[in-house]
């Protein structure tokens, strides 16, 4: 954990202030979140809609963290992350349908691996591109995947989609909302541990090095293209796992489950939650799942509310939600008539 906090790249002010807390308090905050996540079903378990929303938040959490790995920690752009979820979802469905008695860990790894292969292939050309080109190319990917799923009927059943059986270990199956919730929670936690482990290692440093300066990374012996391909592969793996979870949650994968707008919301959540902030991404996921649940009944207005929220938040909090406590603090200080302090002092060159 200490090494992670050293490698932590640009984080929002919220995460920075969390990092400044004494270690004990920080652990306390993590433990508190963990306890809420674990005991939550004891209070809400009877309400299947709430449980569905909570599980959806976990799934989105993994999807958004996987995207943040790419965007925040690796400096790349993907507007087609839902395409990876689709591949993971279809892989999970096909594995569950065609291989009877497949243990769930193997299924999850299989869905992740299948997606990682596609991520590798997509990474090959995109490894050489940057900025807007990458944005548009990945956007094309996100649009193309559902189209392929729609047309490859022999494999995907076209628009009808594939019904996904509930996860199973041995002869035990987990069909209830609460069981699905815990299943997703366990997978999410394992993935987060893996992601933190990668980020704190030389591989994580190589990602950050390529993000911050490709020239210097090359001079330090990092193969920039190979590193980007590896980053895409890794991000795709975790997105594929999220797709697996999503498939079990929905019970169905179809081309319509992965609209382009889903990729956009993931991307917005990454930026609003704070680049290179895992906790910000998880917070973004919770907000996204709750807004979706709240607006699902008000037909037609959902995109207006979600899109409007993204626009307004960016205009007033361009550094993301994580910046909000800092902004509030500044406003409070101004209101009290004290002189605000800068979060990041401008470099001397800027001042001269």
């Amino acid at each position, binding site marked *: 954990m200490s090494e992670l906090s050293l490698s932590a790249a640009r984080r929002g002010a919220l995460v920075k202030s969390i990092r400044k807390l004494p270690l004990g308090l920080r652990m306390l905050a993590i433990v508190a979140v963990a306890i809420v996540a674990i005991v939550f079903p004891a209070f809400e378990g009877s309400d299947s809609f709430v449980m569905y929303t909570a599980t959806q938040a976990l799934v989105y959490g993994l999807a958004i963290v996987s995207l943040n790995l790419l965007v925040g920690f690796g400096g790349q752009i993907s507007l087609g992350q839902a395409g990876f979820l689709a591949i993971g979802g279809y892989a999970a469905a096909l594995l569950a349908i065609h291989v009877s008695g497949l243990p769930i860990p193997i299924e999850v790894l299989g869905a992740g691996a299948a997606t990682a292969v596609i991520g590798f292939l997509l990474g090959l*050309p995109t490894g050489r591109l940057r900025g807007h080109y990458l944005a548009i*190319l990945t956007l094309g*990917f996100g649009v*193309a995947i559902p*189209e392929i799923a729609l047309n490859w009927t022999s494999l995907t059943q076209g628009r009808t989609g594939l019904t996904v059986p509930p996860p199973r270990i041995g002869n035990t199956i987990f069909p209830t909302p609460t069981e699905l919730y815990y299943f997703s929670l366990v997978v999410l936690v394992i993935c987060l541990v893996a992601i933190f482990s990668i980020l704190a290692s030389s591989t994580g440093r190589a990602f950050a090095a390529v993000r911050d300066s490709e020239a210097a990374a090359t001079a330090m012996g990092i193969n920039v293209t190979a590193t980007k391909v590896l980053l895409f592969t890794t991000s795709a793996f975790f997105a594929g796992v999220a797709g697996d979870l999503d498939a079990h949650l929905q019970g169905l994968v179809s081309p319509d489950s992965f609209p382009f707008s889903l990729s956009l919301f993931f991307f917005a959540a990454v930026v609003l939650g704070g680049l290179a902030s895992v906790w910000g991404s998880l917070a973004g996921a919770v907000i996204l799942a709750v807004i979706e649940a709240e607006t699902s009944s008000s037909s037609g207005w959902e995109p207006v509310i979600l*899109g409007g929220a993204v626009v307004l938040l960016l205009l007033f909090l*361009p550094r993301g939600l994580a910046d909000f406590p800092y902004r509030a603090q500044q406003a409070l200080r101004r209101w009290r008539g004290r002189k605000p302090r800068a979060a990041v002092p401008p470099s001397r060159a800027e001042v001269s």
Partner: protein
Amino acid sequence: MHNFFQFVIGGLGFGGIYAFAALGLVLIFKTSGVVNFAFGAMATVVTLTLWSLLNHAGLPFAAAWVLAMVIAMLIGGFTNGVLMRRIERSAVLVQIVLTLGLLILIEGLAGVLWGYGPKSIPQPLSGNPVNVASFLITPNDLFIIGLTVGVGLLLFVVFEWTRVGLAMRAIAADREVASLMGIRTNLYVTGSWALGTALSGIAAILVAPSLGLEPTMMDQVAVFAFAAAIVGGFGSLIGAVVGGFLIGVASNLIAAYVSTNLQLTLIFAVIVAVLYVRPDGLFGRQAVSRQ
């Protein structure tokens, strides 16, 4: 072989439409450095407005078109002057997300205001296909092709040979320096947003009769327009026009020989291939500079 060329010619009409959309994108990108992902939704709103002007206000087609262009320019100018200007110093990511948010917001609003049922507007020119050197082409397609080439050339001349163009290129290269030299950068950038939105609006008006006018009509066209802009080098006006025609022809050939459903996917594969060979597009160029 004759069939093949007939398909090529058949693709030019749509190619011109993609070219218009790509021109709008590239124009805005050149001066403001922003890829406006919301351009399709903005153009659709322009076309829906045109539909209302025709059907509710009962205006003649030409008058409605002119008025729609004015509204397009207001939408574009407003988007830059009120929204994008606030974040012009933010990271590229933030700008991308803002235009994406606008895309969702505007499409949603269009759905709420106009509904999702397809509507129809007439083509600028009707009439049966005419025979040109043994190939068939509709007057409307001829009109689109002529308009595209004309507008593309006009923009190119303005950009490369006039002082307004020089100022706009200077803004694209270094906005702060441009303003230090007395160039009114905000005016020019807002102007390019207005003009770029009008160009995308033309694309949407031209495509609506074939696709059916509805809020998400431009989603597909937008992907083709991005492809056209990329193939053309994203920053080259001539490249946008050529790229538009190339994509139009290629997608018509795919529809004819492969499958209509896989148009988007295969076009996507084509741009991946182009970018793999030439990361800056066919007309893109890398800066000559010395440390």
